[in-house]
Every structure is written in structure tokens, then in C-alpha cells.
């Protein structure tokens, strides 16, 4: 047993106490009759035994105290280990302050965050005499906490009030002892501190200091985690705000666009109507040109009908007037009537404005054009040759397409009338090129002079004079093919004549 008095009594005191105890026991027992030496030895042994018993008692007491202290520390450490950052019941720092006060048996605990300038601190938890107090900011100057910052741990085991006479808080608390630790950030800068204060002198300084150091690491981590979380939340909020703003902007833009596109649609609609009108006008112009032909065309079949009917009356009395004669005459007459009826249908169909795009056969549209022009290719005689390797289908405006072919054919006819080539002919070719319909109409009337070939699609450009041409036919044809049906209409000189070429460029329109 050491004799420096670290625990309890000094050796001398212990000896006196033990002798007193032995004397009391001796009074009770009858004196021994042993020899004085033996007596002396026995006495010494008895005294020593008493000493040992008392020391043992004292050690038991110290052991109990230590165990309690240790249990409290253990409890704190366990709590630290188990408390996840996500504990929601009470803020982490409040719990920590409470546990610290209990474990170290202190009256006051505050956990602070250092403010930007390092001269002030703001509490994140204040525990004082069994309750939490509101958080405050305070200047570090002339406080023990000011001394703490930058040191790992700082301890004033007693009379702290006298050391910091201007610290009103210490005075109010009647503080006696103080321990503080710095909370270090991961980058090595101090970010906060923990201070514990007691009204009694500090008993077990080293244990308290090591516990504080342990807590500091965890608390610093928690502060940084909270900072990071807050930053994350701020970033998240900012992002959400920006998303909201952007969404609003986009919604506004969308509305504006919708309004604009509605207006544009209306404009397109109006334009389409105007164009329809123009197309119709030019169609009528083309028809006007043909009306003379229609008159001529109809006089031929009408004349045949006239002859057939008058013949019946004329031959009635003759021997050749038989049932067969009559039947043949009627059959011939009906054939002519049917043909004329079909011509009417063709014209009426051609006059009908196209309301909607619909799939139609290119060959059929070309045949319609030729049917409408029947008779126009007789004087002078023009051979029309059709090379159809394919029968492409276009999704578009059939009558407008017929009108285009008609315009091109009338142009070819007029060129042939003007130039009178030998063996006048028009070759119409229709095919699918890469899945897209293409139609060429070629004549052999010598071609279009270079100086006007670039102008022939211009509006009001005509070489035919005011009576014959409006100058709108080819202009409208180009508009129909290119604007309304998404194709191209072009012209070139080839094989001794002009060759007009229609290409439907939009693949999806080509095949239904």
C-alpha cells in the first residue's frame, strides 16, 4: 500500500486510528497472560489487521465511486455510439448536452458553433440546472471559451470566476470549475466548442478531459454533417425554386406559343383559302381556254347523233330499214350519249374544289386530263404516248393534280401548234423513283428558249398574248405541286423539246 496519502488517510493517521480500534477491542477482552514479547507481537498484528480492514473499506468506497463514474462515462460513450445522426425525438446537441451534464456531474453545458469572424460564438444547445435555455450569440473575448478556441482542451478546475472577472455568465452561475474543448472541422479549422461548468471544483480532471475530447470529435462531425445537410437542403430548395421558375417560364412560353400558333394556323388557313380561290380561278382560266374546244368537241358527237336519228326517219320506208338497222342505230346513239355523259362528269369532277387530301392514282389523274383535252390533240394531230412502268399513288388533291397535268399538256399543245414539228408527239412517263412517284411530260416542239426558261413559272408570264394566256397556269401548277402537295415541278429542254417533271418528294405520301 502506498503511503503518500493519495487515497484517504496518511500512514500515521492510520496507525493512530488502528491503535485506538485495537485498544477498544482489548478493553473488551480480558488481558492475556502471555509473555510481554508475545503480547507485543500480537498487538502489532492486531493493529496491522485493523489498518488493513480500514484501508480495504476505503478502497471499496473508492471503487464504488469509480464504478459509478465509469458507468456514467460508459453510458455516454454507448449513447454516442448508438445515437444515429437521424435521431428525431430531440435534437442531437440537446441530448448530448444533457448526457454530458449527467456524466460529468456538471451544472451547465453549452455547445457552440463559431461564427464567421471567429470572435463570436452561437450556441446550438444550452443545458443549465436540469433544463434547456434559449440559444444565444456571444463575444468570446474575456471568457474561458475565448481561451479554449484553438486548443484541444482547456481546463480550469477551480476558481474560474476569478480568472475571468468580466464574464457575467460565470458570475451569475457562481461557477467554480470549467472544461472546454474545441470542435475541429475536417479541414483542421476550429468550427465550434463545448464548455461545461460546475459550481464545485473539478474532482477527476483527466477523466473529464478525455471524455470531453471524445465527445468533441463526434460533435464536430455532427456540426459538419448538419452544415452539409443544410447546404444540401439549401441547394435543393434553390433547385426547386429554379425548377418552379423555369416551369413557370416554360408554361408561359408554351401559352404564348400556343396563342401564336393558333394565329399562325388561322393565317395559314386564310392563305390556303386564298390559294384555293386562285387555284380555282386559274382552273377556270384553263377551262375558259378549253370552252371553245368543248363546243367543238361536243358538236362532233352531237352531229353523229343527229345523223343517226335523222337516218332512222330517212330510212324508215326503205327496204334496208330492219330491226337490225334500228338496233345498231340505237346502240351507236347510246354509245355516243354515254361518252358525252362521261365528258360532263369529267368536267364537273374537275371543277369540284378539293376539300381534303386523298390517295389517288396518278395514271387516273393523267387519263382525266387527257379526256378533258380530247379533241385538242386532233388539229394538228398530236400523238400522246404514255409510258407507265408503274401506277404510283399520291396522297393529295386529285383535281389540282389533274389541273397541273392539264396546264402542262395545253402548254405542250400550244408549243406544237406554234412550231408545227413533224410527227408531233407528247410522251408522258410515270414511274416510282426510290419509292416516290415521278411524272414527266415531254414534247418535241423544239424546247423553251433559254431567255425565258427561268421565267415560265413566274405569275402573269405568258408568251401567248392576252387573249390566249393568263400567265397563271404554270405559276399555279408550281404552287399546287410544291406548296400543297410537297413535291417539285421543274422544266428542262431535252430530246428536241420541253420536259416538265413532277416529283413527289415526301416519301410517306407516296404509298398508302
Amino acid at each position, binding site marked *: 500500500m502506498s503511503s503518500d496519502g493519495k487515497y484517504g488517510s496518511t500512514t500515521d493517521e492510520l496507525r493512530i486510528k488502528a491503535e485506538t480500534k485495537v485498544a477498544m477491542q482489548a478493553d473488551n477482552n480480558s488481558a492475556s497472560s502471555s509473555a510481554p514479547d508475545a503480547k507485543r507481537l500480537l498487538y502489532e498484528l492486531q493493529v496491522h489487521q485493523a489498518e488493513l480492514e480500514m484501508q480495504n473499506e476505503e478502497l471499496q468506497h473508492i471503487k464504488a465511486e469509480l464504478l459509478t463514474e465509469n458507468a456514467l462515462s460508459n453510458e455516454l460513450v454507448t449513447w454516442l455510439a448508438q445515437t444515429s445522426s437521424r435521431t428525431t425525438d430531440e435534437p442531437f446537441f440537446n441530448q448530448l448536452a444533457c448526457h454530458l451534464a449527467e456524466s460529468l456531474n456538471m451544472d451547465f453545458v453549452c455547445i457552440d458553433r463559431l461564427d464567421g469572424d471567429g470572435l463570436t460564438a452561437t450556441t446550438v444547445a444550452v443545458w443549465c440546472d436540469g433544463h434547456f435555455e434559449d440559444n444565444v450569440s456571444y463575444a468570446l473575448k474575456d471568457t474561458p471559451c475565448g481561451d479554449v478556441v484553438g486548443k484541444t482542451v482547456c481546463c480550469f478546475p477551480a476558481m474560474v470566476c476569478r480568472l475571468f472577472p468580466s464574464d457575467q455568465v460565470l458570475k451569475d452561475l457562481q461557477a467554480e470549475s470549467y472544461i472546454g474543448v474545441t470542435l475541429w472541422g475536417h479541414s483542421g479549422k476550429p468550427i465550434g466548442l463545448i464548455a461545461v461548468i460546475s459550481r464545485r471544483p473539478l474532482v477527476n480532471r483527466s477523466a473529464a478531459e478525455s471524455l470531453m475530447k471524445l465527445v468533441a470529435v463526434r460533435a464536430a462531425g455532427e456540426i459538419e454533417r448538419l452544415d452539409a445537410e443544410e447546404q444540401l437542403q439549401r441547394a435543393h430548395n434553390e433547385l426547386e425554386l429554379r425548377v418552379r421558375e423555369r416551369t413557370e417560364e416554360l408554361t408561359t412560353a408554351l401559352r404564348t406559343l400556343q396563342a401564336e400558333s393558333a394565329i399562325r394556323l388561322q393565317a395559314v388557313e386564310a392563305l390556303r383559302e386564298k390559294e384555293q380561290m386562285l387555284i380555282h380561278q386559274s382552273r377556270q382560266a384553263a377551262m375558259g381556254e378549253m370552252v371553245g374546244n368543248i363546243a367543238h368537241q361536243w358538236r*362532233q358527237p352531237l*352531229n*353523229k347523233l343527229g345523223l343517226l336519228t335523222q337516218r332512222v326517219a330517212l330510212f324508215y320506208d326503205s327496204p334496208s330499214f330492219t330491226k337490225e338497222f334500228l338496233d345498231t342505230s340505237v346502240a351507236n346513239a347510246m354509245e355516243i350519249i354515254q361518252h358525252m355523259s362521261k365528258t360532263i362528269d369529267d368536267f364537273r369532277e374537275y371543277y369540284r374544289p378539293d376539300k381534303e387530301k386523298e390517295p389517288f392514282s396518278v395514271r387516273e389523274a393523267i387519263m382525266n386530263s387527257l379526256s378533258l383535252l380530247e379533241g385538242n390533240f*386532233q*388539229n394538228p394531230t398530236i400523238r400522246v404516248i404514255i409510258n407507265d412502268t408503274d401506277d404510283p399513288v399520291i396522297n393529295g388533291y386529285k383535281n389540282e393534280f389533274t389541273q397541273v397535268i392539264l396546264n402542262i399538256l395545253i402548254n405542250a399543245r400550244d408549243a406544237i401548234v406554234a412550231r408545227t414539228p413533224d410527227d408531233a408527239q407528247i410522251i408522258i412517263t410515270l414511274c416510282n423513283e426510290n419509292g416516290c412517284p415521278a411524272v414527266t411530260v415531254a414534247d418535241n416542239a423544239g424546247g423553251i428558249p433559254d431567255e425565258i426558261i427561268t421565267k415560265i413559272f413566274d405569275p402573269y408570264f405568258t408568251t401567248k398574248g392576252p387573249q390566249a394566256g393568263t400567265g397563271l397556269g404554270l405559276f399555279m401548277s408550281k404552287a399546287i405541286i410544291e406548296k400543297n402537295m410537297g413535291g417539285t415541278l421543274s422544266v428542262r429542254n431535252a430530246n428536241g423539246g420541253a420536259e416538265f417533271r413532277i416529283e413527289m418528294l415526301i416519301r410517306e405520301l407516296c404509298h398508302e
Partner: protein
Amino acid sequence: MNNIRKQICILMVEDDPANQFGTTSILTHWGYQVAVANNGREALDFLAGNACDLVLMDCAMPVMGGYEATAIIRDQSSKVRNHAVPVIALTAHASPEERAQGHAAGMNEYLIKPYLLKDLLAAIEKWTGH
């Protein structure tokens, strides 16, 4: 009368077979002799080699039309035997300009299709006398 008409030769210039047949049958029924040419060129060939009392001339025909053929008939330097043969135009072209063109070419009479048979007969009788 029929006997006299048998001596009268009418040349019909017409490219449409149905018209050829119809008109021929009617003219024959009336008792005339009928020759057919498909166009102006053939008509000139016929008139160069044959006597003819009257020509019924269509105007719009391939190879050579009626106006051109009539002008050549009237042309004294052409090979046609009788430059003064009466020419009756049968045409669908009804405008005054075309009528004037017909007269300029030397056509004697102008019948617009569709025509009445009695008008045709009257014209033939007027220009042949029978």
C-alpha cells in the same frame, strides 16, 4: 331523179369513220355516188385523178385540214382537175372568224355540225342542180 343523181359524184372528206359511214349511207340512200377521203391530202389526190361534182369538206383533220385543202383546190397551179368544184364545209367551228376563214379559202357553203339532213340535201341540190 335517182338516175340523174347516179351520175353525180360527191367526195366526202372526213376523218371520223362513224361520220363517214353515216353520211355515206345517207348520200347513197339519196342516190348519189360517194367517194371518201380521210383527209385533205387524200382529197387532193382524188381530185387530181377523178371528176367530181361536189366536195363535202370537214375542217379539222389530221395530215391536212379542210381550209388548207380548199385553198389548194382553188389554186390554179395545183393538180386538181376542177378548181371550181363546189366545196361545202361541214364543221364544228362555228365562230364568225372561222366562217370568214372558210370563205377566204374558197368554200362555197358552210354547214355547222350538228346539221339537219334537209339543209345538207338543200345545199347539195343547190350546188349540183340535182
